[in-house]
């Protein structure tokens, strides 16, 4: 069976190479493509030395070639095609020909056929769109070493954009430097769409999916119909608070995840071909638009768009009246996107994640984890103190003193505890952390804290103090409202909510000053670290006069601050802080559940596995602890708990009442159980990257690590049998030698049988499409 499959795959491969598609619909070629290949005159000689591959139209010329790829481009549209010589597969950046049923109107057609489209804002701040093929721009195009470069000038509106496409070892690099953008007319450049139809497919003609970095990772399978009513829109790193002023907060809503990595991708035929697009520069002003087929057009397509100017509403009184304005200066940033192409077994989301991991290694962002132990870690976050009001005074409520933490840790006796103290500062969690290290005396003195850190280090763990360095707690003293806060474009201070506390946000000056001072003292006096909230995922520009800083500036400032002050543990860090991250807290173990997505995948986990230890959200607040633990085992995530010594009744009337369950008396046994169970599974693979992940049957997942060990998770309510080993319901096992859905299907329930049959079915169908 296996051999036949392999044989078929090879056939597919060869055929694919022979008849590379000429337009999008034939990407993973069906019989119609074969016909067109046989009868089209495209396969003519172009140069005496080179035979043009089938499916690349005449208008394209070869721009560059390396060991793996050939790059072709079209001077009139700036479209390019990349031939992957390993598989013969051709990637398209644009739509060449339309078909009936594509549902493209004139604007959309131009959008699909042009390499670059842009939106501009006219005098009334209304956005309008132009593309290369419908605006007749002036273009200067030139080939350069390994690629081509072009300057596109839209004369009518006075906007000029430069773009350079070059071939590199893993794929293609697209550059759009800010220096090459000119605005000379009255209108303002609003947005640039970069190769919006790159890898687009028609409806369900190609089997495969789009990857969106929502939560831990999410897939949208190509289908003829979609449940989506509008496209997926995702701003990298969340909305810019500098433009919106106030972060909307509704305690009844569990907000969707912010996008923390500037990566998108597509699979054309699972285990056949895939690409990922990594935004190296400009992500702070970039966003993903992903269109499943069926909402506007008949195409699945996704792309990066970049924001240069936005309109905003400037209120002029408190009642809400005001005027719509366009931001005074254009966002200054360069754009660099890497398209990396994957083939064969790498052609799935695991391959995409590993390709991104490879990229991060090349960039020097990831370094192998220094792990001395083969036991996993556990994050224990303690609430130290919180304050309460008594008549006219405030007094601390000590929820967990240092001595109590010592007791708890001694009782747990778990290796590698990552201990975080929340509310260590005088009067506890609701007050501003000082710039000089001062601890709440009710918890213990400096020596007690130091001893705590020493004993944790002796157990192989780390002590960190919780800090949200961006947050200036509203209504608290300890900062200057006039000088220290960042300002929105509306000239108001930025406002948001973190951990149910209303906060303003510091400007870069104040933030750097405060963080550097505290960080140094924590290292020096306590020999401890910081657990940094906010900084990792909140990114905002600051419009204060004379101190303007855009989001790119903020990223650079954070990076240089951390480069000086060493590493820290971060809560949900975006990719630009990974180089400084020793531990990743609150890693998402789910996605936001968009109705049109088909699968949740541990993309972030695969990227970071073996490099940065990942700790999940605190399990106290989970409504299904066992299910969540299964996901921890499946995704390679370590457990977290929020603990206090006192019962939570003591903080019911404080702003920390979102911690509704944390008493060690209630959770102690659960902490031990969760750790022991997970450690048995994840301990032996600590420090090893994930190399493969498969669905063995509906609800049975297998994750393989680089050291050959494999974890099988049974999410179902029945026992399953894999390779002669029984897995009880809602449990997981560790296997020393890997199994795969393709060679040992011994799962024994009826449901599993049928699910397995479907898997097989899809595989065969894919192949039959290829066979003539």
């Amino acid at each position, binding site marked *: 069976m296996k051999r036949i499959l392999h044989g078929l795959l090879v056939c597919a491969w060869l055929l694919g190479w022979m008849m590379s598609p000429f337009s999008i619909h034939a990407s993973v070629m069906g019989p119609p493509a074969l016909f067109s290949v046989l009868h089209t005159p495209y396969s003519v000689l172009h140069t005496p030395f080179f035979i043009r591959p089938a499916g690349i139209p005449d208008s394209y010329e070869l721009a560059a070639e390396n060991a793996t790829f050939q790059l072709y481009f079209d001077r009139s549209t700036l479209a390019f095609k990349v031939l992957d010589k390993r598989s013969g597969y051709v990637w398209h950046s644009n739509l060449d020909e339309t078909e009936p049923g594509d549902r493209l109107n004139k604007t959309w057609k131009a959008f699909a056929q042009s390499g670059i489209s842009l939106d501009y804002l006219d005098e009334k701040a209304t956005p309008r769109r132009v593309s290369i093929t419908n605006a007749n721009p002036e273009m200067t195009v030139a080939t350069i070493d390994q690629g081509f470069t072009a300057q596109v000038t839209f004369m009518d509106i006075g906007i000029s954009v430069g773009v350079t496409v070059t071939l590199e070892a893993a794929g293609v690099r697209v550059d759009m430097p800010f220096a090459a953008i000119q605005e000379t007319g009255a209108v303002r450049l609003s947005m640039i769409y970069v190769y919006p139809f790159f890898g687009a497919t028609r409806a369900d003609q190609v089997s495969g999916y789009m990857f969106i970095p929502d939560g831990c990772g999410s897939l949208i399978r190509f289908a003829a119909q979609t449940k989506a009513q509008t496209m997926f829109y995702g701003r990298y790193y969340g909305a810019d608070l500098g433009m919106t002023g106030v972060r909307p907060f509704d305690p009844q809503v569990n907000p969707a995840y912010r996008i923390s990595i500037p990566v998108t991708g597509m699979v054309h035929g699972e285990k056949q071909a895939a690409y990922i697009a990594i935004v190296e520069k400009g992500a702070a002003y970039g966003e993903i638009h992903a269109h499943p087929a069926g909402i506007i057009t008949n195409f699945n397509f996704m792309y990066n768009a970049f924001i240069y100017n936005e309109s905003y509403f400037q209120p002029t009184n408190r009642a809400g009246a005001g005027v719509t304005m366009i931001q005074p200066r254009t966002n200054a940033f360069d754009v660099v996107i890497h398209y990396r192409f994957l083939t064969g077994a790498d052609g799935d989301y695991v391959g995409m994640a590993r390709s991104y991991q490879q990229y991060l290694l090349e960039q020097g962002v990831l370094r192998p984890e220094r792990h001395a132990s083969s036991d996993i870690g556990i994050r224990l976050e303690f609430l130290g103190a919180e304050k309460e009001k008594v008549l006219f005074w405030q007094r601390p409520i000590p929820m967990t003193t240092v001595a109590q933490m010592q007791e708890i840790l001694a009782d747990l006796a778990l290796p590698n505890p990552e201990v975080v103290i929340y509310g260590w500062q005088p009067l506890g969690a609701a007050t501003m952390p000082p710039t000089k290290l001062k601890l709440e005396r009710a918890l213990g003195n400096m020596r007690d804290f130091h001893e705590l850190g020493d004993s944790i280090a002796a157990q192989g763990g780390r002590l960190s103090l919780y800090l949200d360095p961006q947050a200036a707690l509203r209504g608290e003293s300890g900062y200057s409202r006039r000088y220290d806060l960042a300002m929105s474009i509306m000239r108001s201070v930025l406002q948001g909510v973190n951990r149910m506390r209303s906060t303003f946000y510091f400007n870069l000056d104040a933030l750097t000053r405060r963080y550097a001072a505290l960080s140094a003292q924590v290292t020096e006096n306590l020999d401890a670290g910081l657990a940094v909230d906010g900084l990792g995922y909140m990114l905002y520009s600051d419009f204060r006069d004379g101190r303007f800083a855009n989001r790119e500036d903020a990223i650079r400032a954070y990076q240089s601050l951390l480069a000086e002050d060493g590493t820290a543990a971060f809560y949900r860090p975006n990719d630009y802080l990974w180089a400084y991250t020793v531990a990743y807290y609150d890693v998402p173990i*789910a996605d936001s559940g968009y109705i049109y997505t088909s699968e949740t995948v541990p993309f972030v986990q695969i990227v970071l596995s073996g490099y940065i230890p990942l700790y999940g959200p605190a399990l106290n607040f989970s409504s299904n602890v066992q299910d969540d633990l299964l996901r921890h085992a499946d995704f390679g995530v370590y457990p977290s708990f929020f603990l206090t010594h006192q019962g*939570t009744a003591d903080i019911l009337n404080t702003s920390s009442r979102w911690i509704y369950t944390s008493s060690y008396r209630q*959770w102690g046994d659960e902490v031990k159980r969760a750790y022991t169970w997970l450690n048995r599974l994840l301990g032996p693979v600590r420090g090893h990257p994930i190399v493969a992940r498969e669905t063995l049957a509906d609800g049975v997942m297998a994750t393989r690590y680089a050291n050959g060990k494999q974890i099988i998770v049974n999410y179902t309510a029945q026992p399953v049998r894999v390779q002669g080993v029984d897995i009880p319901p809602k449990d997981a096992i560790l296997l020393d030698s890997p199994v795969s859905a393709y060679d040992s299907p011994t799962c024994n329930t009826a449901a599993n049988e049928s699910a397995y049959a479907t898997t097989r079915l899809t595989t065969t169908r894919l192949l039959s499409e290829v066979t003539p």
Partner: protein
Amino acid sequence: MKKIALLSVLVLTVLLATQVKADAPYTTWTPGPGRRLYMTQDAYTPLTEVDLPISGAEDLFVAADGALYIADTGNKRVVKLESLAVSSAERLSVAAEYGKGVLVKPTGVFVDDRGIVYVADAGENAVFIFDKDGQLQKRFGRPTEPLFGKHREFLPRKLAVDVRRNVYVVSEGSVDGLALLNPDGHFIGYFGANTASMSLKMILQRLFLTAEQLDQLIKNEAASPSNVAIDNQSMLYTVTAGTLPRKSIRKFTIAGRNIFPDLLGSSSFRDIHISDDGLLVAVDGDGKVFEYDRHGTLLFTFNAKDTGEQRLGTLRNPTGIARYGDHIYVLDKDKNALVVYRTTAFADVVHQGVRLYMEGFYSEAKPYFEEVLNYNGSFIMAYQGLADAYFKEQNYRAALQTYRYAEDRSGYSQAFWELRNAVLQRVLGPFIIALVVLSVAQKGVAWGDRRYGWFAPLRARVRGWQRHKLVDDLVFMFRFIKKPADSFYYIKRNLRGSLAFALLVYLWVIVVRVLTLYVTAFPFSPYAYLSDIRVENEIVTVVVLLFLWNTANYLVSTISDGEGRVRDVVIGTAYSLFPYALFALPIALLSNVLTLNEIFLVSFSQDLMWAWTALMFFIMVKEVHNYSFAETVRTILLTFFTMAMIALTVYILYILFGQVFDFVLAIFQEVGLRG
């Protein structure tokens, strides 16, 4: 029957995919201390969204065998889906349809245990009854009985059928409640009318508006129920949109009396469902889902409103809700889909406890409630269950403490009664002996004092103290008990009393006010938690009231021939407050040894104290200003009026200055932007 249902639930759980892939788009809330909502672990997670070939569907019904019936309003039919007992939620599809060609605008559907389908049709304004196979059996139009009312319209929208096949019809705009029809379609009577409420504004409108103006206002009539459900004991539940949230769900006895307490509800409820095990779910027009127990206690609520993000588990325009097994099905009219939610492990524990508790198995429910509290220490319903269990086990000390957490005043009081009883039994004998001994001793000492003047030096010392002005003022206060009128005269003549002491009395009153709040026993105190007491508010209120009274009274008296000076009014007021200053605290302390059975002791003595204080005020005004009775009454009323006017003026000034500030700010901002 029950066994079959249980079995089918089991089958269902086996068939469903078990992996929940995404986070819920909402947070879940439960009533906690102070009857406020607290965040908790999710009770339901979204499982799937099932698209169905329906259009604008208005109602959802789940039969006992797990078959879902949908009033497919847009397609003029009722559809039956495959039974949930044999099909998983993801693969629901249409199994049968009813009333094609007969129905015009079906908006309500009910199916009885024989599979007979009852449909309320808003197009035909009639009730249609189909047998199991879809044959039309009966059609009930507008009842012809005179009892129905001559001009009443019959606009059936929703319906429910009891075990005797009587049909309860929600008729749109009916102020008399549900129309009750017998199995032959004859009108029996109205059932369970909502009551109209009258607000102060309405009363004022009725007083001052003309007949024409009144006609233009919306008629103050009881809102008609918007949906109805019936449980296995033939108890009827209605939801009413457009009414106060706390009255939005009613549960009716056979006699048509509402037995639900005030609850945390919504004013836009669309549908309600009660399952056989007594768990009640309701959904409102905003996509908020509520779950209650059979007694109307809110267990969970979450807001699943779709904000345009298209996340799984959000609702755009929900019209129906039903529970089957551990799933909730919500019908969405705009999505033409069923949104399915599944209980979490946490909610399962809560439900187990609540089911046992509702059946009266308090001790059996105890371990579940204890586990619930492990999950969430502020889950107040669990404390109630635990407290009742402790009480039943005669563990009164634990019950007392737990009733305190549950904020159950009567439970607390009962547990306290038991504990006090035990103490009384033990110490009553010795206490009476001690009392006798003490009184004999007191008699002896009094005799000794009379005979030998034991306490003469002490009395001399006290007289010495009295030379201090303040002490003298204090002693003077007790004169008011016997001779209030004379005493006020002394003040007026500058013979006794001082401003300094008056201010001390005010301070004393403030301290007493705050202290009484703190020391009043839990069953008698409006505050469940001492930290709920807003001390600064109490102080400000008292100070403002005293200031307003003194100012207003003096101002009024100066223009109405009052003789009193500012000093007299201030000091007089202070002395008038002495009943409060002296007795409020002891009464509050007394409440600590009483139970709610003896509540009259507390309330009566409080009433007495306030009456006395009021009398003192009256005498004060009369004496200080030297008024006749009629003048005094007039002045006091005018004083109150003036107090109100001063408050109003301050408020208006505040608003005006706010406006001016806004205006100036806007000018500066606009100049900055445009200039």
